[in-house]
């Protein structure tokens, strides 16, 4: 299925044309970028339409030699998990472009080129099954993101962009070492030097090697997610990025970290991951509570949502390392839900900022009266973010907690405290922004058609995910059970070894 390559190369070539020719006016560039991303969305929907959820394993595979001398292939594959994340990417990037429609004032061609390149990189990350190819896309999404923050961001943009880049690049370089380590160990054992994911899956890793290599991957993904001790780039990057940058960062880039855990960390190193799972879950729960506590005291709305992202992504890690049916399904659904909800929140904050020119909660208040439509939309997404039943995040959070409860009741209770805290900080945010006295005399204009279109699309997705998640869950069945089988196989293997040693 060459459509997978189209998903990557369509935005990439669009970026080259828009960025290098420099022939287009700002107005036409916006339409071109929108057309490309909508075409991308249609392709993704088409792939979804023609895929059957029952088929075993991978729905589509693309394979071509790239650098045969080193065993590097152009290997793309799409299973249920990547399908849903590709859909999310295809949905959020046109929204990011629509959000920037009027707010980006200078240099539209470069901006559009960078957004499209980021999209190509993210698509590649979700599709690549050759480790070097994956690494290439992993870095490809980093550079344009850096420029989006550094050139179009807010006051402290350079600092935030640096921090974002240096954190992520250090993590990913350690992953590169781990990839190479795995490559050579596999090559020495079998004589086949390859970066092919399927071949590397069953590498026999002696002793501590597996743990070290797993940590190499884990650090790269943990920086992106971000997990507790290495999260500090995220509030800065989210706050300083332009709205489109925040949407791509929160909606998509954070998901690549969680996706990496699911696709590479657990399947490639099942033994090491089983040993590591308790630590990862503790890191996850620290992230949940820490993010929630810091969100409670934020004055800046973007920063508040950024910390709530740390908290929500803690749930995802929590669910992944609980390593059972409920936990994994919950984590995967929560990734989608968080992507949609948080993007909507950032979009709304961006719209507010265009009107009031501030993101600080103390400067707002009483905005519901002049802007009822915006108030209603923000309410919907706030309720979704705090886990209201019937909306997107609830299903994910509930399943994660159900999964974790089977592993450890204590951790599940601690995690549930995070849900409680999220209700507090989100409702308080809503109250401070929308209710109360109208603080300033200002000519308010409610959402226009473009903004209603953006939020309407996201609202439909949120309701769909919350009310009828079955079409999504169906696709997650196979990927989740593959990962669970690994766990059982590992545990059985450990038990066998113990029995033999008795």
């Amino acid at each position, binding site marked *: 299925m060459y459509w997978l390559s189209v998903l990557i190369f369509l935005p990439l070539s669009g970026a080259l044309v828009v960025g*290098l020719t*420099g022939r287009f006016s700002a107005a036409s560039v916006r339409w071109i970028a929108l057309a490309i991303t909508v075409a991308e969305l249609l392709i993704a929907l088409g792939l979804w339409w023609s895929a059957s959820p029952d088929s075993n394993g991978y729905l589509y595979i693309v394979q071509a030699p790239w*650098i*045969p*001398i*080193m065993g590097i292939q152009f290997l793309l594959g799409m299973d249920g998990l990547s399908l849903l994340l590709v859909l999310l990417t295809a949905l959020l990037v046109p929204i990011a472009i629509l959000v920037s429609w009027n707010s980006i004032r200078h240099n539209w061609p470069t901006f559009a080129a960078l957004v499209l390149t980021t999209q190509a990189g993210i698509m590649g990350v979700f599709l690549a099954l050759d480790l*070097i190819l994956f*690494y*290439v896309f992993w*870095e*490809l999404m*980093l*550079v344009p993101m*850096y*420029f989006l923050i*550094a*050139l179009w961001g807010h006051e402290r943009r*350079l600092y935030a962009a*640096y921090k974002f*880049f*240096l954190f992520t*690049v*250090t993590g990913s*370089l*350690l992953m*590169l*070492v781990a990839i*190479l*380590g795995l*490559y*050579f160990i596999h090559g020495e054992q079998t004589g086949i030097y390859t970066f092919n994911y399927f071949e590397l899956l069953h590498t026999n890793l002696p002793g501590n090697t597996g743990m*070290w290599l797993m940590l190499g991957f884990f650090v790269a993904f943990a920086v992106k997610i971000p997990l507790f001790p290495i999260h500090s780039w995220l509030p800065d990057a989210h706050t300083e990025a332009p709205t489109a940058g925040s949407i791509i960062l929160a909606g998509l880039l954070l998901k690549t970290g969680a996706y990496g855990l699911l696709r590479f960390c657990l399947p490639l190193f099942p033994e090491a991951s089983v040993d590591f799972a308790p630590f990862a879950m503790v890191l996850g729960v620290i992230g949940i509570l820490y993010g929630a506590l810091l969100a409670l005291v934020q004055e800046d709305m973007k920063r508040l949502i950024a910390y709530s992202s740390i908290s929500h992504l803690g749930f995802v890690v929590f669910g992944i390392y609980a390593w059972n049916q409920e936990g994994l399904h919950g984590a995967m659904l929560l990734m989608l839900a968080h992507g949609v909800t948080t993007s909507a929140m950032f979009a709304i904050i961006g719209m507010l900022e265009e009107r009031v020119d501030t993101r600080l909660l103390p400067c707002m208040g009483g905005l519901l009266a002049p802007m009822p439509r915006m108030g209603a939309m923000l309410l919907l997404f706030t309720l979704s973010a705090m886990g209201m039943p019937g909306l997107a995040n609830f299903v994910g959070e509930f399943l994660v907690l159900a999964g974790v409860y089977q592993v450890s009741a204590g951790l599940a209770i601690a995690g549930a405290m995070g849900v409680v805290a999220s209700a507090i900080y989100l409702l308080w945010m809503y109250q401070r922004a929308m209710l109360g006295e109208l603080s300033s005399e200002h000519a308010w204009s409610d959402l226009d058609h473009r903004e209603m279109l953006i939020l309407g699309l996201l609202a439909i997705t949120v309701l769909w995910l919350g009310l009828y998640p079955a079409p999504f869950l169906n696709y997650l069945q196979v990927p989740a059970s593959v990962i669970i089988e690994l766990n059982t196989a590992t545990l059985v293997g450990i038990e066998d070894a113990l029995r033999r040693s008795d």
Partner: protein
Amino acid sequence: MHSADLISLAPFIVLILGGLTVLALGIWPQHVSTRTLATVSAMFLLLGAATTVLWETPQTVNNMLIIDNLGRLFAQFFMFGAVAIIILSFNYAPTKNEVREEYLSLILFATLGMTLLVTSHNLVTAFVGLEILAVPLFALVAWKPTRSGAIEGGVKYAILAGFAAAFFLYGITIAYASTGTLNLAALGSITTDNYLLIVAATLILVGVGFKLALVPFHMWAPDIYQAAPAPITALFASIAKVAVLVFLIRLLCLQLQNIWEALLPLLGILAVVTMIVGNLLALYQQNLKRLLAYSSIAHLGYILVALSAGNSLGRDAAIYYALTYALMNLCIFAVVAAFSRPDQDRQNLEEYRGLGRRHPTLGIAIGICLLALAGLPPTAGFIAKLLAFGAAIKAGYLILAVIAVINTALSFYYYLRILIVFYGEKSTKQDVIHLSQGTLSIVIISSLLIIGLGIFPGWILDLIETL
């Protein structure tokens, strides 16, 4: 000497004839335009590159030169590189009317030195090549002596090159004293533990280390990079260094493999020190040319990581890295040359603020260069680092690879700083810059090659594999 050897020697003869012809044109009764002189020298270089195609490989000439694919690859590379340097110099404003017969013949002779160095099969030939390369460089560094720092730079380089030559010669002497031969093949066949030979190789390594600016022999590099006119800095940083590096690769990896294995720990230590010192000194450097000098020191460290792996992958990685390194430096110094002021290069990084925006072609090129230097895909710099670090990991030196990786991450800090300055918003002074077609074409060709070799590294890797 057989007549067949004439074909093997043809490129050398062409270069010598070229140098002499250009000099002779200078004393021609009628005035010969600079354009004619430059064209004639470029023609001789291209002719030299063409004659290497006729080489029948592998063979040796009188046991003094070895004619093989490695030599051919790099001889061609140097000659095309020298053409690029001539084009850059011709369009470079500060030495506009100074690029006459002396300058051009010096470049031709320097190219001769490089070619001799990479094809030498005898330590004495190597020494001769090294000196033929070094002497024109003293003069070129100090070109147009009225520039500030020009004489200082030339003298500094001359003294340090003298040191390097002394160490190198001392190494040669000890090698001869302990084995009675200077032929590389003969030296390579000595399998008994000959400690004197290891000492000799170490001394040669020190001599070469001066030329490559490895830490702790790196002091000269930033001064010379700053003092020399940008096209000459490009010559220094790209092909001249690579020639010495390829000689080192031939000496250790192809000929004296026993010695290579004995020197691995030393190479490893040099690699670590060179990377760390180069990167740390670059971090807060404000002068662009000095910063690039430190960055190229750090890059030599990464190449040494590959060499200290001690396996065939390490050798291939070092060769690939050498090519990439030369291309990246050529490209970035071509950009520096393009942005030069009428009297001298821009020195401080701040003087470049906003130039990338105003000149999009050069801006994109410098973006590609810096991302390649930083080692991001899909550039050749990434593949080079992948191979180099891969070689270290394959040899089991995981710690070395991790140190190299952390250094790479560190280097992002200053590469991004340059990039941000180039794309910064406020330009300080709106001085007019005349971009010449020649410089622009060099920049475009080299950045396309950097991208091309990054996406299809197979072109070169297949070739290197068969060397």
